[in-house]
């Protein structure tokens, strides 16, 4: 057989090298696949994933008011915007934006702005939900951790954050009920 020839040529070294390599490769693949369950067990578990939707009654929120609800352990900002805020958000020139997005792409109904209230820099909760809190230089939200300013559409305008506040999946079930997730 041909292997015998090779064995003779190389004093049997080739066959042995081949066996070493295959055994090593199988061992490496086996160990790596064995590591997977250990690593994947650290990913979000089934019950964590299951807490994925909430329903919110938005009828009590007056114009100019905001509420914060908890979704997947994260704060979600729901703001009933004033006409002035809507106007400010819509008239902003795209070239002034770091993360370019028009206001109409960020809302389903322009009166209601729904966003995850987590600064896209390093995850603090921006201020601006309460009347007494600072709203930053652009009348929206201000993150105190490293000074990010968001506008009335929740878009990043100044400071270290790279992205606009995230808009989660949501839908209006009727005029007063909102389903998030």
């Amino acid at each position, binding site marked *: 057989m041909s292997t015998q020839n090779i064995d003779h040529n190389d004093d049997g070294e080739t066959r042995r090298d081949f066996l070493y390599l295959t055994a090593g490769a199988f061992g490496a693949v086996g160990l790596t696949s064995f590591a997977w369950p250990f690593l994947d067990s*650290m*990913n979000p578990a089934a019950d964590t994933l299951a807490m994925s939707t909430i329903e919110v009654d938005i009828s009590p929120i007056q114009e100019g008011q905001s509420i914060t609800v908890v979704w*997947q352990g994260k704060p979600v900002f729901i703001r009933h915007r004033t006409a002035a805020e809507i106007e400010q958000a819509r008239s902003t020139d795209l070239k002034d934006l770091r993360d370019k997005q028009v206001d109409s792409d960020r809302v389903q109904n322009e009166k209601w702005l729904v966003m995850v209230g987590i600064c896209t820099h390093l*995850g603090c909760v921006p201020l601006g939900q309460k009347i007494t809190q600072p709203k930053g230089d652009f009348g929206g939200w201000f993150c105190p951790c490293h000074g990010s300013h968001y506008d009335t559409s929740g878009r990043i305008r100044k400071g270290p954050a790279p992205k606009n506040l995230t808009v989660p999946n949501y839908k209006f079930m009727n005029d007063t009920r909102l389903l998030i997730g």
Partner: protein
Amino acid sequence: MSGGERAEFKNPVVSWIDERLPVFSLMQKEYGTFPTPKNFNYFWNFGAIATVMLVLMIVTGIVLAMHYTPHADHAFGSVERIMRDVNWGWLLRYLHMNGAAFFFIAVYIHIFRGMYYGSYKKPRELLWIFGVLIFVLMMAAAFMGYVLPWSQMGGWAATVITSLFSAIPFIGEDLLHFLWGGFSVDNPTLNRFFSLHYLLPFVICAVVFLHVWALHVTGSNNPVGVEPKGKQDTLPFHPYYTAKDTFGLAVFLLFFAAVSFYTPNIFAHPAHFVEFNPMVTPPHIVPEWYFLPFYAILKAVTFDIGIPFTDVVFVSAKLGGVIAMFGAVFLLFFLPWLDNHPVKSARYRPLYKKALLLLVVAVLALGWAGAQLPEGLPVLVGQIGTAYYFAFFLIILPWLSKNEKALALPKSISAAVLEENKSKAQTTTGTAT
């Protein structure tokens, strides 16, 4: 480490064991007769001090863990219970809390000693690398420990620091959910941090073992940075340095005890005594003091890096800050190759000495800037400090390695010691007349 030569022991039990497993011979060789340069100053105490602090952290930690509950709903309460109801619980927690701070004080001085006297240079590069590895593991352990009481400051520190990983392009978000075990810092995060916080100190012990092993292969450096040339330059470790280390340790522990008993919360922040609320970030979050210089480097990058006057961005401010912060620690691993000037001790390198002392000033300034709100002067100080930090390692050290003319080195440790004594004698007679 192997069998090797064995010492003679009078005690028959010791002798019996030593014949079968030569642990006593080993101790005798490595800590008894071990030849140690005779000119150490007190900077050489801090390795031993750090080791004692590590042991203290493990002992207090294990007992704390018997009373602590790693669950988001109970962690804060269980730590309060430790403080109020558990016998001596306040003592255990204050020793552990302030122990971490004093551990870092000892290690920072230890690192400075290494840099000042060139202890990282050939043949001690690997010894230095193990040291930097210990420093990195310590930071990880302390960071995760700080999260365990589930306080406002700890929880938000965890949020901000883990969110650093979201700066990594493409996989950042998934990696973050993997680290958290969910979609925010929550119970799964607390659980794994407790598991790792328990584990890491023992990993540190293992690396300390390698660090000390490497030390005992090359032997210690010393303040003049000239290797011992023979017996006349060294002393046996015991009793000379066991005594000196014990004295230094006692003084250090005096400070540690004074803080732990009289001002135990001096390093703590008020928001560390309020339970974690994931819906409200405290108005000003700061990490523990020992992370402040690195935190300032993170905050110093406030600009995107890309093609000027266009929207093309290669590295966002966020990613840039993260790279700078991790880079600042990572650079330390390469110190032996960034500075390859043949002279070790800063005593004989006037320019290096100035540059290094300026680095200390820069790091202290960064520490101050790291604790301030990111507006105005602190940002500027942070940026200047960061620029100097990187310039020191990447420009000044390589340049000095080629161009600095060192002062004349003493012929040996003994020659240096005699010289020093002579000049001391001269000044005393000088004042007498």
